[in-house]
C-alpha cells in the first residue's frame, strides 16, 4: 500500500520519502553503499564523479543549516551541481503555489529535489507532481518523516553494535508526538529487525495508537531504559516546554533527562545518540553527551555518507545505467 511511489518498476529506489513501505533489502543496500562512501571523505580529493552533470536542488521551505549542509556536501562529493533554494513561508503566501515553484525549477532541468517542508505529506505531494525522471528526497516533512536522519542513525548503530539488530533493545526518548525523526527511526528499526523498540515520554508527548507502529510505550525513564542497548534522545523544541504539554524544563530534566546515574539501569555498553542540537541539562546532562558512550558527533559525520548513498541509489533508479556507475 504505502511507499510504492518510492520504487520504480524494478522495485528500486526512485524517491526517498519515508522508510515505511520499503524493505530490509533496500535499507541494507543504503547502509552498505554508505559504508563504501565513508572512504571518500577520508581521501585527499573528497570527490567521486558518480553524479557529474546532474543538478540537485535543495528546496527548503523550513529553515535548516545542519541538514541542508550535509545534503549539499553529499551532493558535491558526488560531483553534482547543487542549488540551494530557501523559501520562507511568507513568499508562498504571496500567491505562488508550491506547484508553481516546482514547475519553475523543473524547467531548469533539475534531476533531484531535496525537500524540507513544515507540513506532513509535502514530499509525497512533490513526488507525485515531478516529471518522471526527477527524484525527490525527503529532508523532513512536518511530523511525518525524516528518513535520511533515521538511516544515518541506523548506520551509526550498525557500526557500533554490528549488523545483528535482532539482539538490540532500543529506546527513543522525548517528544515522539511532534517528531518526524522518531517515526522514521521506528520504521527503520522494525524493518531491520530490532529486538525491541521502546518510546519513552510523558503522555502529552506520545501520539495515540503509536503501539501500532511496533513499539512499547513507557512513561518512566527508569523503566524504559532498563537493559537497553541504545538510547536515542530527541530534541525538545523550546517552545514546547511551557504550557500544556510540559510544565517546565526543570521537571522534564528531573524525570526524563538522561544522567550517568540513571544510565546504570541500561546495559553497561549502552550507546547514546541524539540528532542534535542538544539542549544540555534538559534532554541529558553534559557528562552523558560528552561521555564515552555517546556517539553524537559520529552521527553527524555519518550523515554525509548516508545522504551520498541515498542520492546515488535514487539517481541510478532514475536512469543511470549500472555499467556507468561501476566504471566511474
Amino acid at each position: 500500500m504505502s511507499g510504492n511511489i518510492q520504487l520504480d518498476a524494478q522495485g528500486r529506489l526512485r524517491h526517498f520519502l519515508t522508510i515505511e513501505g520499503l524493505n530490509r533489502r533496500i535499507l541494507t543496500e543504503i547502509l552498505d553503499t554508505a559504508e563504501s562512501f565513508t572512504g571518500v571523505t577520508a581521501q585527499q580529493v573528497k570527490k567521486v564523479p558518480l553524479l557529474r552533470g546532474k543538478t540537485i536542488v535543495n528546496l527548503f521551505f523550513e529553515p535548516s543549516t545542519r541538514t541542508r549542509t550535509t545534503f549539499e556536501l553529499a551532493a558535491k562529493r558526488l560531483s553534482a551541481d547543487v542549488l540551494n533554494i530557501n523559501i520562507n513561508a511568507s513568499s508562498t503566501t504571496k500567491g505562488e503555489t508550491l506547484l508553481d515553484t516546482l514547475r519553475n525549477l523543473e524547467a531548469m532541468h533539475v534531476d533531484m529535489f531535496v525537500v524540507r517542508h513544515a507540513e506532513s505529506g509535502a514530499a509525497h505531494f512533490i513526488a507525485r507532481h515531478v516529471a518522471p525522471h526527477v527524484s525527490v528526497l525527503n529532508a523532513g516533512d512536518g511530523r511525518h518523516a525524516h528518513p535520511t536522519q533515521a538511516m544515518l542513525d541506523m548506520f551509526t548503530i550498525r557500526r557500533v553494535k554490528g549488523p545483528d539488530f535482532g539482539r538490540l533493545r532500543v529506546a527513543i526518548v522525548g517528544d515522539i508526538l511532534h517528531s518526524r525523526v522518531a517515526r522514521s527511526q521506528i520504521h527503520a528499526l522494525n524493518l531491520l529487525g530490532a529486538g525491541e523498540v521502546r518510546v519513552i515520554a510523558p503522555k502529552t508527548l506520545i501520539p495515540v495508537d503509536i503501539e501500532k507502529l511496533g513499539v512499547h510505550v513507557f512513561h518512566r525513564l527508569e523503566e524504559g531504559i532498563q537493559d537497553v542497548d541504545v538510547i536515542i534522545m530527541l530534541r525538545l523544541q523550546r517552545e514546547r516546554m511551557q504550557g500544556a504539554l510540559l510544565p517546565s524544563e526543570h521537571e522534564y530534566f528531573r524525570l526524563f533527562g538522561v544522567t550517568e546515574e540513571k544510565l546504570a539501569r541500561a546495559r553497561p555498553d549502552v550507546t547514546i545518540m541524539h540528532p542534535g542540537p542538544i539542549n544540555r541539562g534538559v534532554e541529558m546532562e553534559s557528562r552523558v553527551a560528552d561521555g564515552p558512550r555517546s556517539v553524537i558527533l559520529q552521527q553527524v559525520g555519518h550523515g554525509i555518507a548516508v545522504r551520498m548513498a541515498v542520492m546515488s541509489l535514487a539517481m541510478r533508479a532514475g536512469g543511470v545505467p549500472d555499467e556507468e556507475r561501476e566504471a566511474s
Partner: protein
Amino acid sequence: MSQRIRIRGGRVIDPAADIDRETDVWIGGGRLLAVGDAPPEGFEADFEIDARGHLVWPGIVDLAARLREPGAEHKATIASETRAAVAGGITTLCCPPDTTPPIDTPAVVELIRKRAQTAGFARVETLGALTRGLGGETLTEMAALKEEGCVGVSNARYPLASSLVLRRALEYAATYDLTVFLHPEDHALAAGGCAHEGEVATRLGLPGIPAAAETAAVAHALALIEHTGARAHFCRLTHARSIRMIARARYDGVPVTADVAIPYCFLTEHDISEFDARCHVRPPLRTAADRDALRSALASGAVDALCSDHQPHEPDAKCNPFPMTEPGISGLDTLLSLGLRLVDEGVLDLPTLVARLATGPGDILGLAQQGAGRLLPGRRADLIVIDPDAVWRVSPETLLSAGHNTPFMGWELRGRVTHTLVGGRVVFERRPEPN
C-alpha cells in the same frame, strides 16, 4: 403554464404516508393531486412519464450544500450547483450561512433566493448566521432573518465566544421558533488538526482532531439545550459516542435531531492512506467502528437525516500538501447513488432511505406542511423518478457539480435519476443513453 402530468406505474415510496407500492402519481397546477391507481376526477394528462420498473420518491431534501455564492464563485455558483442537485434527485437544499459575506442580513438571504429562482432548478433554503459575521459574539437580527425566509440559524463551523453566547443564542432563537443548527466541535481541542486523532494521523504525522472534540461539544450543547428548552439540530455527527449521547437526550425528551453526511458512511481515516487530499474533510473521517455506528444510527432512526455536506472546490484547493488543502467533498452528484448503495449493502431498506433523505430533513427544516420530503396531496409536487438499475461511473464527465473534488471518483454506482420535478415542473430529464 403548469402541466398535468401522470407518473405511471412506478414503485412509489413515501414513508410519511406509509406508501410503498406500484401505482401512479397525478400532478397538476404545480401541485401533487393524488397518489393512486385512479386519476383525480376530470384529470386529463398533458403528458405521461412512464415509471414502470422505476422508483418514485419525494424529492431529496439536502440539509447541507455549499453553493459558494456569494463570495467564492470560482468554486461554484448557485446556478451550477442547483442544476447538479436536481440531476442528483435533490429538489430542496439548505445553504449554510458561511458564505462571503455570511448570511447575517436579510439582503444576503434575498440575494440567494433570487439567484436560485433565476436558475430555476432546486429550491434553496437558507440558514441564517447565529452571530454577526459568524464572529461568535453578537447575535444576529434573527427575527428579520426569519421574516426573509431563513429556516434556521447556525454559526456553521465557527466557534462561539462562550457558553453564555450559546445559551443566549438558543434562548433568542427559541423566541422566534427557529431551530439552532450546531456543528459540534470543541475548537481548542480541534485546533490545528486535519485528520482523526488515531492510528493514521499518528503514522502520517498529521495533526489530529480527537473524537472528544465532538463529544465534549455535544455534551456541552446538550446541557444548554436542556436548560433552555430550545430546539436544536446536530450537524454532521461522526462519532459513535455522540450518537449515543443524543439518543439518550432524546429519550429524556430533549428536543434535538441529528444528521450525518454520506461520505462518513463509506470512508474511514484509512482512506487518507498516502495523504489523499480528497479525503481531507472537517470533521475528519474517523474509524471503521464509527462508520458502522453511523450506519446503524441511520437504520434505527437515532439520526434523522442523511445529507451530502456538499463542498465543491476548484482543483487548486486540493493541490497542496495535505494539511494545507481546503477540507470538503463535492457530494450532490453522488448522494442518491451512495444512499442506494447502503440499501444494496443491507444497511437500510428503501423506505428508510427515503425517510433519511427526504422526510427527516424536510421535518428538520420545518417544511413538512409545505410537502417537502413527502408526497402530500395539495402540496408542492417535488418528486423524482429513479432508474434503480442504471449503472454509472463517477468521473469528470459524469459529474455536474463545478467541484470535482470527490474521493468516490472512479466508483461504479447504481441508481440514477431519470426525472426531477420541482413544483410540478420537470426541471431535469435524463435521456436514455443510446445502446
